[in-house]
């Protein structure tokens, strides 16, 4: 064990050589070959959130205990998915702070807090942050007030700082950027405040903008403009607020897009409203659209399609294919061919009452408008506004071939309202998304961990929880799935059967994605509850 | 009812095997049960663990050999930020913990799940001068929980639901009276003091009728015109002299006597306008519990000018000294001296410094300090040990009848003391700077240590050094363990005989509360509070 540690140190010492970049692109490319580290938001470029570590197993999971805890010092909600690189953990705290922590002892090493303008009320999202990206010697942080900042991973020194967008236009960012070869890709949020969605790519060395792709037309001649009646494309929307995936071989970036604007009042924007509520595949070098797939045409329930897309290989109908799977907020599970965007499968994974089903091309066959469209008095539709799943990440195990998702079953009364929006929101947004929701029947909403056959979406098992859980899932080579319930019970399930093996009450809601890492050859699992980061291990 | 509870516990234990539900008797605590708290250690019935405030538990399931297997069982996180200094009360399966500024939460000790929560409705212009808006715990008697609020009210809550039973004002918060202490419940009475000594007020301690909140008596800690001792205050300085009673005291049922420490004279750091001994500031008061009359007093720091309150919880124990059985009250004072007094007479028996101090040559035969010259604060700053925060502050020491040792979390630190205005304007408490201030000697020049003192002499038996600050009390158990923590988030267990470290865990934020222990369904638990979380540990 000590030996292991010294090896670690030697590594570090080599790191002192000026030429050596700590995390070159090659390490990200082969992230699966170093399971002791967690090098990017989704664990690997396929966003599988699969850990190759196997020290913790169904047999010994009951012996898990808290190794150490770190409490963030402020208020707010901790939704950060930490990176762990060679024994150092990089975690973000609300609103946009970064803390480097000794992953063995939990002692903080440095802390960075950008100056956030006071006259700023993010709309439709919490002022928090879900993580950083690492490439070379730098960490990349996207701040709530729309800056992309490169920090020296050793000490938190700012290397460069570039503005992505103007918060006065409704933009706000909570996502972790995605680091490619020499590039940093990052999206924007703020759909409820009228943000006009786009995805940007920056030079990792100097923060120069390399390309920007707008998800919604900005002129009548732009592609998709004709799917917005009366030039309503100018409303914006189609934000890109959650971290996407990347296929190095195809050199394609996959990113989900958010709702059209205004959310709950579609009258002024008849048409499909491209490319909102869609999956877009962009060329990583040029930012050109390779293909798109729209999950929810003319969406009116705030069912963003921003859920992390999971990339995997499988044989479908006797043919090996490169696949992209996404459990959508609209309660359907989709499998697409990620080379072409072709729709292969789509089935509900949670209760839904808005569509009869999907047609051969994967387009929803909607129920009659009067049954599903928001109304002044409120229309009861399933799933809820927060969706069958929201921003939290599902995971995929190449061992079990299962797709694990924390699914929400419940409905809401969707209320249609007028959309009023004041550009400068420094004193609270008036109106907002043109309506909203009232909760559905009391006690109905529940959440469950569901294991789906990744290629078909067929339910293999489910684990029902009490309350409205907002936790992602992690699956390990040891055969465990980790997640948590709304009360803050962090638990381990058998990845094959869903059998609960261990749990611990952490005393506050767990609202982040668990990850796993190892130091000195010892496996740790980490997740945060309330304002506390808990790290678990075997004795 | 206690018997009933034991039956239940038994049933529960059997139940565990059979897999039965675990049932809590309706929370109800008689005076007699608090009186004999040692005989049912499963609960933690009063702030100090017992009336002698020894913070010693008879539980011994967790011991020197197995403590290293301690495992976190559940966590409860506060819903608000703030500083968390609560010492929980545990009764019949329910833990009563207070959250800052004044919220009482009842937790199911078996699962850590909240069952009710009550929050005081506080004034928006709440005044807290020289103290944190927090709360250190509740008292329980019968089926009622008693909490003193930061805006100086005493409130009785239904122990089962948190419903308010009655609410009385103890002091005027607009005049900076604020309370953070846990009240003390004795036979039919609720005893509570007050804080805000930097605000320029006259200290007192009250007794209220547990049934209806009627005030039974009030003892002012500063004499007024015509009373003995008023001449120890120059001019009219006695009117705003402070001497608050801001920490929970102890009680001797046989002598029917309360023991309560008093705070600094005001203004803190400039004594020019209050020449004299300033009775009864920085003293230990022995008070008749029925009448509120003072039986005796012992002043630790006459004419105090360093904010060294004598509010540290006094600990009562009996011991044989020079072949004579004595009833003792012992106190490790903020001024760095450890005192052993006869609690019947207040007679000084022994005393010696337990931490570095540069202000006195020592104590005379009567226990009065023999002060060094030039120890007062100056406009340029005067370096004196201990610091303003003292060798120990509000956190509780503990005493183990098994080892005969007194365990104190000691601070080794000095400070530059600065002198300011000699007077204060009580009409304007928000402007009171305490007549000066301090600059700490920080960094490696300071450290903290858990020290074990021979309780009858103050001789040091062992110490465990900590890096950095520590604001945690000590807990002594019959398992031969001392639990304590530091401000860096390490919660740990020491060997009560040798001070050897046996177990520790990093909780991720400063620990600032007195640890306690309890048992339920035959399992012993230890409670540590770090940052904004209650963490409960037990053996696997």
């Amino acid at each position, binding site marked *: 064990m000590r030996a292991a540690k010294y090896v670690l140190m030697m590594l570090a*010492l080599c790191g002192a050589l000026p030429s050596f970049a700590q995390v070159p692109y090659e390490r990200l490319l082969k992230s699966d070959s170093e399971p002791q580290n967690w090098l990017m938001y989704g664990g690997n470029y396929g966003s599988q959130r699969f850990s190759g570590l196997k020290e913790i197993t169904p047999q010994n999971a009951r012996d898990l205990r808290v190794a150490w805890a770190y409490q963030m010092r402020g208020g707010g909600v901790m939704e950060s998915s930490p990176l762990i690189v060679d024994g150092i953990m990089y975690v973000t705290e609300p609103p946009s702070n970064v803390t480097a922590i000794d992953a063995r002892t939990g002692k903080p090493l440095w802390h960075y807090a950008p100056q956030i303008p006071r006259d700023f009320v993010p709309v439709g999202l919490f002022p928090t942050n879900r993580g950083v990206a690492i490439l070379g010697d730098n960490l990349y942080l996207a701040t709530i007030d729309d800056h992309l900042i490169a920090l020296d991973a050793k000490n938190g*020194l700012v290397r460069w700082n570039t503005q992505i967008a103007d918060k006065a236009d409704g933009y706000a960012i909570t996502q972790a950027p995605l680091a490619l070869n020499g590039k940093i890709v990052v999206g924007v949020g703020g759909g409820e405040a009228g943000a006009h969605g786009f995805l940007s790519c920056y030079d990792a060395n100097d923060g120069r903008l390399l390309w920007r792709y707008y998800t919604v037309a900005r002129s009548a001649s732009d592609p998709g403009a004709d799917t917005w009646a009366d030039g309503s494309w100018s409303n914006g929307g189609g934000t890109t607020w959650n971290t996407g995936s990347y296929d190095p071989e195809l050199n394609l970036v996959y990113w989900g897009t958010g709702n059209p604007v205004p959310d709950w009042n579609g009258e002024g924007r008849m048409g499909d409203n491209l490319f909102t509520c869609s999956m877009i595949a962009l060329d990583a070098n040029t930012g050109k659209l390779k293909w798109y797939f729209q999950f929810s045409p003319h969406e009116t329930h705030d069912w963003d399609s921003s859920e992390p897309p999971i990339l995997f290989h499988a044989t479908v109908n006797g043919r090996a294919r490169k696949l992209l799977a996404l459990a959508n907020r609209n309660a359907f599970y989709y499998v697409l061919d990620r080379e072409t965007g072709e729709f292969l499968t789509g089935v509900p994974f949670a209760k839904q009452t808005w569509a009869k089903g999907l047609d051969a091309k994967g387009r929803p066959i909607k129920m009659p408008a009067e049954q599903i469209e928001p109304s002044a008095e409120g229309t009861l539709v399933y799933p809820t506004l927060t969706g069958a799943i929201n921003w939290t990440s599902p995971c995929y195990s190449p061992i079990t071939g299962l797709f694990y998702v924390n699914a929400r079953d419940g409905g809401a009364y969707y209320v249609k309202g007028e959309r009023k929006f004041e550009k400068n929101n420094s004193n609270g947004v008036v109106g907002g998304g043109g309506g909203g929701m009232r909760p559905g029947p009391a006690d109905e909403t529940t959440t469950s961990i569901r294991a789906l056959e990744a290629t078909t979406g067929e339910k293999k098992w489910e684990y029902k929880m009490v309350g409205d859980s907002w936790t992602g899932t992690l699956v390990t080579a040891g055969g465990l799935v980790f997640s948590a319930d709304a009360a803050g019970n962090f638990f381990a399930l058998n990845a094959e059967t869903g059998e609960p093996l261990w749990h611990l009450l952490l005393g506050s809601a767990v609202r982040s994605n668990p990850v796993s890492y190892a130091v000195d050859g010892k496996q740790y699992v980490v997740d945060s509850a309330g304002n506390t980061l808990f790290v678990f291990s075997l004795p | 009812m206690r018997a009933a509870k034991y039956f239940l516990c038994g049933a529960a234990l059997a139940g565990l095997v059979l897999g039965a539900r675990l049932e809590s008797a309706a929370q109800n605590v008689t005076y007699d049960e608090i009186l004999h708290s040692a005989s049912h250690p499963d609960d933690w019935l009063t702030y100090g663990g017992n009336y002698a405030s020894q913070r010693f538990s008879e539980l011994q399931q967790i011991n020197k050999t197995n403590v290293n297997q301690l495992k976190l069982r559940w966590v409860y996180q506060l819903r608000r*930020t*703030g500083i968390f200094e609560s010492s929980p009360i545990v009764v019949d399966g329910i833990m009563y913990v207070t959250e800052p500024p004044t919220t009482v939460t009842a937790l199911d000790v078996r699962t850590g799940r909240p069952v009710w929560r009550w929050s005081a409705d506080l004034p928006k212009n709440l005044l807290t001068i020289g103290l944190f808006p927090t709360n250190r715990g509740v008292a329980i008697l019968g089926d009622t929980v008693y909490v003193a609020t930061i805006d100086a009210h005493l409130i009785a809550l239904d122990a089962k639901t948190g419903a308010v039973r009655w609410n009385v004002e103890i002091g005027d918060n607009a005049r900076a009276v604020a309370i953070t202490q846990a009240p003390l419940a004795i036979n039919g009475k609720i005893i509570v003091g007050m804080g805000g000594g930097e605000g320029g007020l006259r200290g007192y301690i009250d007794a209220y009728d547990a049934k209806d909140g009627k005030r039974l008596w009030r003892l002012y800690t500063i004499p007024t015109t015509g009373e003995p001792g008023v001449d120890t205050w120059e001019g009219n300085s006695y009117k705003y002299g402070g001497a608050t009673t801001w920490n929970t005291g102890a009680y001797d049922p046989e002598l029917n006597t309360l023991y309560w420490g008093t705070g600094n004279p005001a203004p803190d750091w400039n004594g020019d306008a209050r020449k004299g001994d300033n009775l009864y500031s920085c003293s230990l008061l022995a008070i008749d519990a029925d009448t509120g009359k003072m039986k005796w007093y012992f002043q630790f720091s006459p004419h105090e000018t360093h904010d060294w309150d004598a509010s540290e919880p006094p600990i009562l124990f009996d011991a044989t000294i020079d072949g004579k059985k004595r009833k003792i009250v012992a106190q490790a004072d903020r001024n760095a001296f450890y005192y052993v007094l006869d609690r019947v007479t207040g007679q000084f028996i022994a005393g010696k410094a337990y931490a570095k101090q540069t202000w006195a040559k020592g104590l005379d035969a009567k226990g009065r300090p023999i002060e060094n010259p030039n120890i007062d604060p100056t406009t340029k700053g005067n370096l004196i040990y201990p610091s303003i925060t003292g060798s120990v502050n509000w956190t509780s020491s503990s005493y183990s009848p098994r080892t005969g040792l007194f365990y104190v979390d000691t601070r080794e630190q000095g400070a530059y003391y*600065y002198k300011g205005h000699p007077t204060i304007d009580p009409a304007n408490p928000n402007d009171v700077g305490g007549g000066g201030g301090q*600059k700490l000697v920080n*960094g490696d020049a300071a450290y903290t240590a858990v020290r074990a003192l021979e309780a009858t002499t103050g001789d040091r038996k062992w110490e465990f050094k900590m890096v950095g600050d520590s604001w945690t009390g000590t807990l002594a158990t019959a398992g031969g363990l001392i639990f304590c923590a530091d401000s860096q988030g390490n919660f740990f267990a020491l060997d009560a005989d040798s001070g050897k470290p046996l177990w520790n865990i990093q909780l991720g934020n400063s620990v600032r509360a007195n640890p306690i222990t309890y048992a339920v369904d035959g399992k012993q638990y230890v409670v540590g509070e770090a940052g904004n979380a209650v963490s409960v540990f037990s053996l696997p």
Partner: protein
Amino acid sequence: MTASWRWSAAILLFLGAGAAAILPHAAAQTPQAPPAAKDDPVSKLTPEDIANGKQIFAAQCAGCHGFDGSGQLGPNLHGVEARRGDAGIFAVVRNGTGAMPPVMALNDQRVWQVVGFVRTLGDTGPIEAAKGDPAKGKAVYDANGCAVCHAIGTTGGGVGPQLTTIGRSRPPKYFYDFLPDPGKNPPPGYELVRVVARDGHEVTGIRVIEDTYTIVLRDVGGHFYSFDKTKLKTIEPEPGKTVMPSYGNLSTTDMDNLVAYLSSLKGAQ
């Protein structure tokens, strides 16, 4: 020493009341344009406001932060505006953070007055003008590779403290004493410590953080070494030693110019 050093010192070595565990480089600040004067209440504060802020500070803040803001239970606040910015300080006063309670009893204007006063903490006030030429001093700074270890704004290394605002808190005299013999009086948070493990393995580095059970060192490459203290044979400070070389060999003019340059570093104020 700069604000950030003292800040870190207060926490690193004597963490009180759950103060945010900020390490030296935490002082790294985002070079964002300061808010336009119109929505910047601080720029509108009068000397009377600052005085009022001082009075409020003495009554409401000094209890924890020390009457001069140098910290006791709460962290040292000198130069905190470089890290949090005015809005950040305002937010902390208004909402509290960690152990610090929210201050609800002050209206916005009062809070801004406190912010105005806090900004002045740690400033050495009017300091005697440096005699050298700052422009030439910058050349000396560059020629001697100071930037390898020190950052000004976003450029430079992170081994030594940030110098972005050092001119605000350090008189020239300090530099004249410090530069020839950096080890004589290294700023808190930069002491060299040598640890020897039970197996004889040795590491010498800057002590990043130490508590009762663990110690973390940082080497010249900026890499961290974390130790379980029970597995160490010795932990010894190396008095008089520092990773920073002496610059006593500079010519008098070069020294004057370098000092002038350093004194001119006052951040984006």
